[in-house]
């Protein structure tokens, strides 16, 4: 395992959470009802907390004195390694729900597997995140069914949304040398069983929701290596401008 493998891997996990949290924060106060508004704020907060824990630990692993904020706020687009799924726009409520459902269906088995990591700090952070991810999945699965098995309009919208988000899901399962070496060291999990559970969750929930499962083989990958869709470049200025404008500010 190379020295900075763990650092890079922690950033991948953290960046997924930070970017989806930022996306969800954009729509707080714009949800269809009050309960959902509170729910989306809570889910965004869970993801932000997970990102903070991972960035803080990444800073310790790197050992150059970088704080969680330094890592989150001072990197540029090409240095972000989130999957391209999480940076996709909120679109309508169906698209936000589809994006979240795919992420939840991936994060539940991922974090459960990470609780067995040989790195005890990562296992601890994952143990917390796994519990939260299970709640997120319950909520997003419920919405998928409510929309899919709802009115003609809601069915049509959620069907279109799961198709639109599908080509960005393959990026969640891309592995490279970093993850392979960490797998050898017992730190990162094997993504094959994670993907099996992701697939099983999709099959189960789409069946209940009367949604036709996408089969499009085209997948837009590259996020882990810093090759993003056009959207990330618009998220980062809003996220980072305050921190960069007032370097070193503390509040």
């Amino acid at each position: 395992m190379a020295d900075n493998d763990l650092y890079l891997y922690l950033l991948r996990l953290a960046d997924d959470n930070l970017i989806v949290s930022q996306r969800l924060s954009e729509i707080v106060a714009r949800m269809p009802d009050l309960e959902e508004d509170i729910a989306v704020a809570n889910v965004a907060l869970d993801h932000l907390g997970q990102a903070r824990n991972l960035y803080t630990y990444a800073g310790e692993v790197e050992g150059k004195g970088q704080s969680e904020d330094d890592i989150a706020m001072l990197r540029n687009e090409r240095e972000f390694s989130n999957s391209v799924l999480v940076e996709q726009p909120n679109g309508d409520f169906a698209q936000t729900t589809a994006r979240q459902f795919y992420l939840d269906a991936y994060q539940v088995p991922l974090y459960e597997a990470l609780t067995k990591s040989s790195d005890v700090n990562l296992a601890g952070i994952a143990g917390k995140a796994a519990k939260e991810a299970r709640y997120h999945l319950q909520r997003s699965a419920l919405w998928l069914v409510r929309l899919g098995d709802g009115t003609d309009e809601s069915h049509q919208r959620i069907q279109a949304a799961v198709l639109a988000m599908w080509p960005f899901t393959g990026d969640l399962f891309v592995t490279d040398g970093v993850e392979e070496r960490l797998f050898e060291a017992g730190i990162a999990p094997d993504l094959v069983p994670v993907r099996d559970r992701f697939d099983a969750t999709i099959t189960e929930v789409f069946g209940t929701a009367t949604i036709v499962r996408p089969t499009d083989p085209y997948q837009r990958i590259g996020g882990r290596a810093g090759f993003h869709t056009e959207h990330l470049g618009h998220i980062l200025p809003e996220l980072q401008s305050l921190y960069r404008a007032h370097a070193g500010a503390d509040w």
Partner: protein
Amino acid sequence: MPAPTGNGMTADELAAVTEAVEAVTDPEIPVLTIKDLGILRSVKAGENGEGVTVTITPTYSGCPAMDTIADDIRSAIEAAGSVGEIVTTFDPPWTTHWMSDEGRQKLNDYGIAPPACGAGTRVPVALGRITPAVAVDCPRCGSDQTERRSEFSSTACKAHYVCGSCFEPFDYFKEI
């Protein structure tokens, strides 16, 4: 105020500081102490022979109360005439099973339904189905005719319920 130095901390002094730390309350639920909630994991004599080391664990990854809790612990330690270091741990992850019986009762009296307790109470939920996970009693009238409105409520650790008997909405401290 003489700060303890070296290995000068006596058992009595440690007990006094421990008591002060245990009395720190949760800023969101001021009727509960961090000990009641299980957020406080341990208070030990500092490893470098000075003051105390307090270990805490967050309820949720994004719990915004953790900074305030850490500040309050620091103040409590100083007020007890000592110095201390605060360590945050994630392992083992916090669970509602750590909440004391006294804490559950206080929570209920405060108007928040306490989490279902005991290992194994977590019911496997069929995804996409609205399933009544566990019976939650209304903290106001005690009725079990309650309905979950949302998995999430005023804070990340609570779900939103409404009582079918007295029709009051209430928070349920959800089990994790």
